[in-house]
């Protein structure tokens, strides 16, 4: 992101210096996000008192786990200055393959499902990294290709593969600890640990931030940036496939619209969580909160029983308000 020197608002000459609270908030934006999350949960509890129980919160976690896993890949891509618009169709395709291979055992089903993500992500990465195709266009075209491919496969090779193995259903939709904590949260936790470890403890993580921050400098200092792109797009593909398999497990059935509604929220979760769309700034911990906020939000809107249209309007306005507030708070630095 280029240095902003435009005096838009907060540097008014007569304005008092930001107070201690404002400074603390600006330094720890996750506090703002956590506060918004708590407020949203409480408001939802006011609307529907039964929400503030284990089963109510469990539903939110069930919603949040696939979204957050998908958003993990998106976060890493945004950090490198990329974006993936094909995650939804990769997830759907992985769910199809997993459903088709379910008779051969859950392990084979999951591995082959993930292969969809590996292949699609790898091609995305080669397109963006080696051939310098704009990420928006590359992944957009990939989603068109995969949509055509899986529409065709669903009518021919993959017919009848609309349900998944018992194991996948348990992991995607089941819970443990007295039916309180979904299994998918464990998968999510493992993914989160892996991503946070990559981001903050490995050389790859440093390079990911660096590529997003200043690709030219990174290339001139000897990093083969195309490899970084191939790796992150492949990783994003795998995570999308994983999210798709979990989704299939949760809904118990597979269709071509399975993950379509997750595309924009997966980007929104990362952005609400403070990951810059221009690359180089952000972390998965923010995305986790972003995914939780969006999931609570969609639950709240379901409880309001206002209909699809009003839900969409309110959802959009709240996403806008949240990101505005976030930009406002962090700009006070």
């Amino acid at each position: 992101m280029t240095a902003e020197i435009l005096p838009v608002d907060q540097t008014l000459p007569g304005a008092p210096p930001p107070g201690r609270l404002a400074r603390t908030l600006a330094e720890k934006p996750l506090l703002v996000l956590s506060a918004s999350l708590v407020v949203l949960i409480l408001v939802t509890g006011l609307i529907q008192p039964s929400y503030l129980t284990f089963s109510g919160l469990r539903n939110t976690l069930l919603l949040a786990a696939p979204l957050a896993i998908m958003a993990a890949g998106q976060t890493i891509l945004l950090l490198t200055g990329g974006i993936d618009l094909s995650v939804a169709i990769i997830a759907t395709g992985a769910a199809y393959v997993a459903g088709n291979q379910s008779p051969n055992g859950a392990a084979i089903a999951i591995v082959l499902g993930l292969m969809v993500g590996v292949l699609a992500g790898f091609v995305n990465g080669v397109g963006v990294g080696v051939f310098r195709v704009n990420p928006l266009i590359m992944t957009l075209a990939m989603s068109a290709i995969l949509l055509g491919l899986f529409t065709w496969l669903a009518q021919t090779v993959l017919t009848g593969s609309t349900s998944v193995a018992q194991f996948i259903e348990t992991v995607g939709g089941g819970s443990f600890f007295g039916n309180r904590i979904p299994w998918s949260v464990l998968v999510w936790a493992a993914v989160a640990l892996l991503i946070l470890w990559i981001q903050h403890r490995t050389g790859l993580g440093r390079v990911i931030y660096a590529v997003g921050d200043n690709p030219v400098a990174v290339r001139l200092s000897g990093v083969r940036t195309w490899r970084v792109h191939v790796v992150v797009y492949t990783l994003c593909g795998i995570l999308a496939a994983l999210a798709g398999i979990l989704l299939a497990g949760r809904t118990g059935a597979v269709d071509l619209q399975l993950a379509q509604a997750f595309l924009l929220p997966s980007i929104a979760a990362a952005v609400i969580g403070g990951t810059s769309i221009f690359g180089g700034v952000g972390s998965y911990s923010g995305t986790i909160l972003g995914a939780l906020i969006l999931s609570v939000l969609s639950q709240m809107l379901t409880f309001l029983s206002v209909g699809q249209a009003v839900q969409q309007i309110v959802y959009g306005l709240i996403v806008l308000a949240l990101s505005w507030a976030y930009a406002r708070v962090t700009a006070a630095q």
Partner: protein
Amino acid sequence: MTATAPPITTSRGINWQRLRRRHGWTIGVWLLLAVLIGWYTTLVPNFGSFQVASILKNSQPLIYLAIGQAVIVITGGIDLSVGAMMLLANSTAAVLMDGQPLWLCLLVGLGIVLAAALLNGTVGWVINVSRVPDIVVTLAMSFVLSGLALTVLPSPGGGTAPGFRFIFTGSETGTGEVFWPALVMIIIPTVLVALFLRWTRSGLSLYATGSDRNAAYLSGVSTARAKIVSYGIGGAMAALAGLATVAITGTGDPRYSVGANATLNSVAAIVLGGIALTGGIGSVVGVVAAAVVLFFLSPILSAMRIDPNTAQIIQGALIVLVMMVAGLVELRRRRSQ
């Protein structure tokens, strides 16, 4: 002028090199379109005014969306809500125009275009004030707008006046052999926007803002105004796309997926049309050809008797291929300089 003076390029004759350097991409896209049309004439048994009319009218929505998107991207933004805005305009028009006389339909259409310009201009203002990235604000707006479209028209329906359909399609029933109205409706907005961008102070400020916002600001360009104007134009063009859809189909359709696809196609069209997503580069003339090319692929593929799913795969692969070739050409050009 003495004999030793360096040769000065005279104004007579065309400077081919400069033309190629400045407009090479635009010319290339138009050539691609010409090749595709030539190929198409050999594919269908009788290529005539009916096919021309059909292609022109059906590519209208994408052309309008792409022009709007182009103006916004040239100014350094990106609007992921153009498709949703199209849905909203489409639904509103279908509801308000149903069973009304032509003059009222025209009035409604004008009102919708102005309202959309105002609304999207406000979005531009919000982006400017809030400093939230364009993608995020317009992503959120895409939910809001498609929600509004669903509120206006819960399920496909509505209608418009036959005369209104004639304006966009050249036929009161939506299909016919008269192609000049569609052609005129494509040329007028294109020329207006192209002239505005190239020949007015305000239009130039959009390019300035898009190519370097800080430098533009420091040289006295009102970058805030540029943003608002660009989004306003984008909104108006999206509304025009919505009106064209009503005229073509004769009904309104608020389905979310229609809008989402339209948005994505508009982005693909501008990139293919030579607009840099980083802002400040490109012209809408190339974008129009690119939009027709993108739309044109599906009739070509169906004329080749390729089933729609395979056609979609080929279409995606072709877009990638074109962009890859373009990327390689650009890379070679930069290396040779």
